[in-house]
C-alpha cells in the first residue's frame, strides 16, 4: 500500500469536509451544497487498496457527521457501499477514460445522499425534505460528476510532483552488443 497516497487522500477528504462547511457560495447560487466525498471515494476505489477505501469511508463519514446535524456514523455506510462496489469490480471498469470517471462520479454522488437519507429515515430522524430536494439531488449529482475528473487530475499532478517516477529503460541491451574481434 502506498502510504503517501493514503495520507494524501485522507488529507483531501478532511479539507473537503471543512470546505463544504465553510464556503457556501454554491449554496447561495444553486440552493444546494455539493458533496465531494463520493467523488473522492471513486478516485480511492479505482486507484488504491481496500484499506484506503475503508479508512476514507470511516474517517470521511465521521468528519462529515461531526460538522453536521447527522447522527454520528450515518455517512460511513453509504460512502463505503459505493467505494466497496467500485473497488470490487474495478478490473471491469475503463478507469483511464475521463467519461467513465465522470459517469462513476455522477453515480456515486447520486447514490450516497439517497442512501444517507434512507438511513436517516430508518433511524427515525426527520430531515428537511421536499420537492426542492430533487433539485438539490441534481446539483449534487452534477457537481460530483464534474469534480471527479478534476480530482483525478489533481491527484495525478500530485503523484508526478511528489511520487517516485519509474526509471526509463536505456536502449542498451547486452545481447545486442556488437563485440568486435581482431578482424
Amino acid at each position, binding site marked *: 500500500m502506498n502510504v503517501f497516497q493514503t495520507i494524501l487522500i485522507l488529507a483531501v477528504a478532511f479539507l473537503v469536509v471543512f470546505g463544504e462547511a465553510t464556503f457556501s457560495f454554491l449554496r447561495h447560487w444553486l*440552493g444546494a451544497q455539493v458533496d465531494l466525498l463520493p467523488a473522492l471515494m471513486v478516485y480511492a476505489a479505482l486507484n488504491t487498496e*481496500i484499506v484506503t477505501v475503508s479508512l476514507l*469511508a470511516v474517517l470521511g463519514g465521521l468528519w462529515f457527521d*461531526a460538522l453536521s*446535524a447527522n447522527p*454520528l*456514523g450515518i455517512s460511513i455506510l453509504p460512502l463505503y457501499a459505493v467505494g466497496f462496489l467500485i473497488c470490487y469490480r474495478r478490473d471491469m471498469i475503463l478507469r483511464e477514460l475521463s467519461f467513465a470517471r465522470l459517469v462513476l462520479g455522477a453515480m456515486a454522488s447520486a447514490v450516497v445522499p439517497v442512501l444517507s437519507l434512507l438511513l436517516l429515515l430508518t*433511524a427515525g430522524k426527520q430531515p*428537511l425534505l421536499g420537492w426542492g*430536494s430533487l433539485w438539490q439531488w441534481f446539483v449534487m449529482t452534477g457537481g460530483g460528476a464534474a469534480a471527479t475528473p478534476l480530482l483525478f487530475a489533481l491527484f495525478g499532478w500530485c503523484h508526478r510532483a511528489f511520487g517516485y517516477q519509474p526509471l526509463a529503460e536505456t536502449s542498451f541491451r547486452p545481447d545486442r552488443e556488437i563485440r568486435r574481434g581482431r578482424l
Partner: protein
Amino acid sequence: MFRKKHYVALGAVTLLAVLILSLPPRAAARFKLAMGSWFLPLFGLANTAQQLPADLADSVLPRRELLHQIDWLRRTNELLQVQALQGAAILRENDQLHLLLGWQRQAPWKLRLANVVLRDPANWWRTVQIDLGSRDGLRENLPVVTADGLVGRVAAVGVTRSQVVLIGDPNCRVSAVVDNPARDTGIIGMGGPIETTLVDLTYLSGSANLKPGQGVFTSGLGGVFPRGIPIGQVVDARPVEFGLYTQARVKLGVNLGALEQVWVLFP
C-alpha cells in the same frame, strides 16, 4: 471471485459503523465533539480567509467616505440613545404597573455576541456552528437572535463552539403568536429545503383570520424562547385537514443564508 481481504474489510467497517450508531446519546455527543475538534486549527484560517476581502475593501475605502460613515454612525448613536432613554422610562412605568397588579416581571435579556464559523455541510439540515461554547457559559436550548428577529436555539455545546439549529429545521419548533386581535397561536415548523426565508406556521385554529403582513412573534409557551421575539410576517394562509386548522406561510425577518454574527440570549 472470492476476495477474502475485501470481505474482512467490509465486515470490519460495517461492524464499526453499527457500533458508532448504537452508542448511547451522551457518548455519541462526546465522540462527535471530539471528531469536530479535529477542525479547530482550521477555524482561525477560515476566519482569516473570510475577513480578508473585508479588510481589503476597508483599506481602499476613501477617507471622505469613512468620515461620512463616522458622522452617520454618530447621529444614529445619538438617536438610539434618546430612544433608549425613552425605553428605560417606559420600562420603569411598566415595572410599576406590574408591581401594582402583582404580575410577574419579565427579566431583561442578557446578550452575548457570537460569530458564525461553519454551516451544516448536509443539505437536509439547517444548522450553523458559532464560536462560543461551555467555557463562555453556553448551554443547550438558549435562544439565538439577531436584530432582525429569531434565528434558532443552541442544540449542542462544545468547549469552544456550539451548534445552533436554525428556525425552519425539523428540530427547531417554536410556539408563535400572530399580532392580530385574536392573538392566534401556532407552531413554527419546517421550511423548504431550498427556500430559507419561508417557514410554515401550523396548528392555528380553523377560525383564524390572518392577513398578509401581520407580524409573528414568539409566544413564550414551551419554555425555550422568551415572549415577544419577532419571527417574521404572514405571507398567506389556507385551511388544511378539511378546515380543522389553518396553516400560514411566514416570511422570516432574518436572512438565514447570510448569517455572520448572532446574539445568544441568556435568561
